[in-house]
């Protein structure tokens, strides 16, 4: 039974390798394009958010390539009242794309027993021992963590690189090489190679780049095709880009509450309650940011982030932070976004020049 999963940034790299090593046949859907979105739209309710449409599109494309089973982490909770995964399943079922579904909700939501059972269903076709399975899973999680760290490093470096384009190129070729790796071990070697390459990048240490924090809705943040390559645009303008919301962040955020370790809870002035999605976390990041400017992104119609936007307006007013809000939808007209992003970076640059006197 061929397995597939929807895209979320670089997650497919680790997931595909893990499944491969366990001997489970896997179909990786083609990268997100306009066509993916068209297919997703054809089955989704009109008012659905952009990530849903992309994911539905991924699964349709995978189905056409022979996938029979979907495995998907579904963090019962944040979005669509926790029924996000179920909804996706229903929508595709009704449209005639019948597949088996393994929804890995958080252990906290469904109980550790049920969680392990579902994980077991996923692994029933593998003849790997439990020990090997555990080793592979750990390995792929480690790959994900180190990939996120490395990408973050390269994005930060973009502001200091002599040619900002180098960093963009490096990010692209890194993913490409990982995509082609045979197994986790080979992927590990690729990682080591790129870690060395980052250190060799020609830098201009005298540069003081504009630093930008990208935050907001998680899918739009992680999946570059849903934000019109926002980060690449920023890097090419010579900015240092920081985006704390990545797969590692999500893993930590999802898994920690099910462990008996108490997290450090601090009182949050602007948005003390969780209102669904990751709005609370977005607000926290905006509040705590020390970058020159913040770009907050979300797909059209994302309720939690709309609330976060309202709250961030208040933060902007009270704490003088510079925030640019971008809402992404199916519209592919890049010019409007470019103008806004360019004007925002321009604004930060000019302000710094005047206030710092250089």
């Amino acid at each position, binding site marked *: 039974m061929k397995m597939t999963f929807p895209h979320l940034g670089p997650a497919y790299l680790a997931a595909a390798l893990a499944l491969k090593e366990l001997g489970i046949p896997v179909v990786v859907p083609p990268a997100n394009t306009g066509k993916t979105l068209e297919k997703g739209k054809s089955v989704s309710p009109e008012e659905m958010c952009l990530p849903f449409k992309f994911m539905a599109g991924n699964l349709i494309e995978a189905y056409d390539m022979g996938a029979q089973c979907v495995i998907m982490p579904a963090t019962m909770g944040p979005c669509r009242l926790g029924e996000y995964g179920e909804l996706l399943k229903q929508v595709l079922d009704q449209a005639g794309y019948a597949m088996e579904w393994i929804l890995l909700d958080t252990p906290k939501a469904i109980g550790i027993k049920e969680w392990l059972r579902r994980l077991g269903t996923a692994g029933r076709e593998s003849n790997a021992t439990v020990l090997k399975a555990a080793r592979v899973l750990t390995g792929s999680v480690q790959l994900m963590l180190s990939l996120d760290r490395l990408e973050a490093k390269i994005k930060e470096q973009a502001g200091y690189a002599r040619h900002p*384009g180098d960093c963009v190129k490096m990010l*692209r070729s890194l993913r490409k090489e990982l995509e082609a790796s045979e197994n986790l071990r080979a992927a590990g070697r690729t990682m080591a190679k790129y870690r060395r390459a980052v250190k060799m990048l020609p830098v201009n240490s005298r540069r003081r780049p504009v630093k930008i924090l990208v935050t907001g809705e998680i899918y739009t943040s992680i999946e570059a095709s849903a934000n019109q390559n926002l980060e690449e645009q920023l890097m*090419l303008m010579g900015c240092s880009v920081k985006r704390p919301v990545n797969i590692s962040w999500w893993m930590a955020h999802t898994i920690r509450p099910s462990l008996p370790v108490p997290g450090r809870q601090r009182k949050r002035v602007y948005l003390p309650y969780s209102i669904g999605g990751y709005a609370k976390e977005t607000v926290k990041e905006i509040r705590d940011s020390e970058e020159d400017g913040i770009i907050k992104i979300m797909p059209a119609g994302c309720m939690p982030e709309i609330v976060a936007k309202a709250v961030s*307006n208040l933060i*902007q*007013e009270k704490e003088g932070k*510079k925030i640019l809000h971008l*809402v992404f939808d199916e519209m592919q007209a890049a*010019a*409007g976004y*470019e*103008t*806004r992003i*360019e*004007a*925002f970076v*321009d*604004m930060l640059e*000019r*302000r710094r020049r*005047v206030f710092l006197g250089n």
Partner: protein
Amino acid sequence: MYFLGIDVGSISTDLVVIDEGCGIKEQLYLKTKGRPLDAIARGLRELGETFDSKEIAKAGVTGSGRSLAGAFVGADVVKNEITTHAAAAAKIDPQVRTVIEIGGQDSKLILLEEGLVSDFAMNTVCAAGTGSFLDRQAERMGIPIEKFGEAALRGKNPAPIAGRCAVFAESDIIHQQQMGVSEENLLAGVCRALVNSYLSNVAQGKKLLPKICFQGGVAANQGLKAAFEEALETEIFVPREHKIMGAYGAALLALERKDAEGTAFKGFDRGRLDVEIRETPCFDCPNQCKVVRLLHEGHAIGAFQDRCGKYQRDTAM
């Protein structure tokens, strides 16, 4: 030495020449009419009669057609409209804290702090709050757009019109017409609807501090100025140069670079060239840019939309 600024917008293409003291020497306001290249060429020919190409030290371009203009005339500065409009407003009156700019296809709000942009917003939803909507309504009622504002000022009892969406607004206007509402009141209603939609869609609750500067082609409309004054309960300043502020700002930014050597400006004679636009997909890297090239008698004289800049370098000379 002089500095050239060009603003290529959806409705108008403006050209401004300034001297080193930021004074405007010459200004042109031309209709784009969907053919930006022709409009720029016309402007260059006209300016070429007064100025010598060698007198232009630096050139700056802005507006939605800035990449095209930059490739065609050769620009030292290619900047977005927000930065240029802000620069122009701050130069004309340093007291300005708020810039309301309404153009043909978009509307912007720029907040300034000591002459520097501190926040900005652009319309997102639809063209309901922009000049093209006014144009269309004026045309539908058979009133020349120049007379629009004057007539609207006479409307003492503005008709209620929903301003959120251009299509709904039009249905509303037609309905009011059938109900026998006078033309003046209708026009006044359109102005009020546009202002409300601007304040809710673009300004979105941001604080508009005085002094407020209203610019862009639409600022010529007296009725709209009055509607803004009524809604914001403060006086609104419309600079004499309101139509060409973008181009003026582009020229000012070009002036900022005056110490750098040389210029990319290719001369007013560009206005006499027969230019063909060709879109070439480039497959040299995964970016797969759709490069736009400007050809004259088969030779490339300019290019844009190539992210790596390869085609632009080839035609820089």
